[in-house]
């Protein structure tokens, strides 16, 4: 694997996490439990999509085959998407949606903070924008975790159930492989060990305040980074890619 291939793959992984999570949050548009949250989730979807666009554009430039953000977002096959399985999980109830975002935010913020120091100027610049938004996102999802956990019996149970169901997807966030090792060595990508330590701190603090228990680490689902997804992924792409498949090149 060349440096260029590693960087392309890495940028795609970062982009796909955000693209797919953005799509999931966008599904809440018009269905939020209260107006403020409907707006909050679509705002977050927009932030994630903006970041994904920057990363996809960059991934295309690094690849050097003339693919732009739209080609990469709409015209790849399922096996070519490199997002973690966590972000493709269904929305479920509101606690499930919030818990999924909380776990992602607790990883994403320290990742972006560390990436500010990347030797790759474009990744550092993208992180410079993202870190501010990610701070805001983590505050939003943490507030809700605490409100659900320390709320009624019903909200507590639902938040705990969501955590228990999603926990198996958190391990994949921190798996190193050839791509990350190479880029960490080059000073381009942050070391995931440090990100994991920050993730643990945030999760432990918030869950303690929320009176929720941290699930035990057991079997961890992986494969998303290699393009092996859960069955839910196909449904997302079917909807997301419909327009470009049906009307290639359509713009509006």
């Amino acid at each position, binding site marked *: 694997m060349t440096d260029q291939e590693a960087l392309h793959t890495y940028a795609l992984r970062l982009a796909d996490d955000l693209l797919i999570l953005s799509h999931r949050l966008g599904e809440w548009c018009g269905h939020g439990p209260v107006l*403020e*949250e409907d*707006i*909050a989730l679509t*705002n*977050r979807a*927009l*932030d*994630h*999509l*903006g*970041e994904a*666009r*920057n990363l996809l554009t960059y991934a295309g430039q690094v690849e050097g085959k003339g693919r732009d953000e739209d080609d990469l977002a709409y015209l790849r096959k399922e096996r070519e998407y490199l997002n973690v399985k966590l972000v493709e999980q269904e929305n479920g109830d509101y606690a499930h949606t919030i818990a999924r975002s909380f776990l992602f935010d607790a990883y994403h913020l320290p990742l972006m903070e560390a990436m500010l120091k990347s030797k790759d*100027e*474009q990744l*550092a*610049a*993208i992180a*410079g*924008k*993202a870190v*501010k*938004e990610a701070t*805001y996102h983590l*505050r*939003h999802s943490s507030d809700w975790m605490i409100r659900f956990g320390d709320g009624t019996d019903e909200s507590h149970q639902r938040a705990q159930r969501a955590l228990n169901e999603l926990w198996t997807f958190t391990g994949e966030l921190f798996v190193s492989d050839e791509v990350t090792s190479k880029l960490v060595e080059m000073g381009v990508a942050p070391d995931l060990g440090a990100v994991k330590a920050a993730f643990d701190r945030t999760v432990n603090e918030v869950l303690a305040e929320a009176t929720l228990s941290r699930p035990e680490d057991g079997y961890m689902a992986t494969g998303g980074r290699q393009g092996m997804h859960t069955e839910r992924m196909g449904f997302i792409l079917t909807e997301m890619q419909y327009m470009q498949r049906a009307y290639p090149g359509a713009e509006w």
Partner: protein
Amino acid sequence: MMGDQNPITEERILAILDRVKDPEIPVISLIDLGVVNGIDVSASGAVTVTITPTYTGCPAMDVMKADILTELGNAGIEDVRVELVLAPAWSTDRITEGGKRKLKEYGIAPPETTADIRALKGKAPIVECPQCGSEDTVMLSAFGSTACKALWKCNTCLEPFDQFKCL
């Protein structure tokens, strides 16, 4: 260039850009907002305007780009490129004092500065109601009608209002 009564200078372009308004907050200009990073005029008169997005996903950026081209075109400046750069990242500290005043007059509470110790500690800032000036206000939602705004309510005059989020 023909007689050149009106040479293309950075100052002239700056004055024209000050007429281009934020598409979603039509009282403040791109200059007030601090999104213009640089203006470059080449020897041949080709103009490059560099802008930086407020929010990564801000859908207004494309409109701003188009508006810059239109406004400069109206002034007879045709050879223009608008470039989007991410670094240095925009922050609300780049909104000018004049811009903050105009936001407030428009009914949007301006952002506090990022150096505010409360913001650093993740605490809710003290936000003054743009309608009645009361500091007895409460945030209803961290997210508002556009990517850059949060929704607040004044406990004194009971009016809801938008706040420009501090980033």
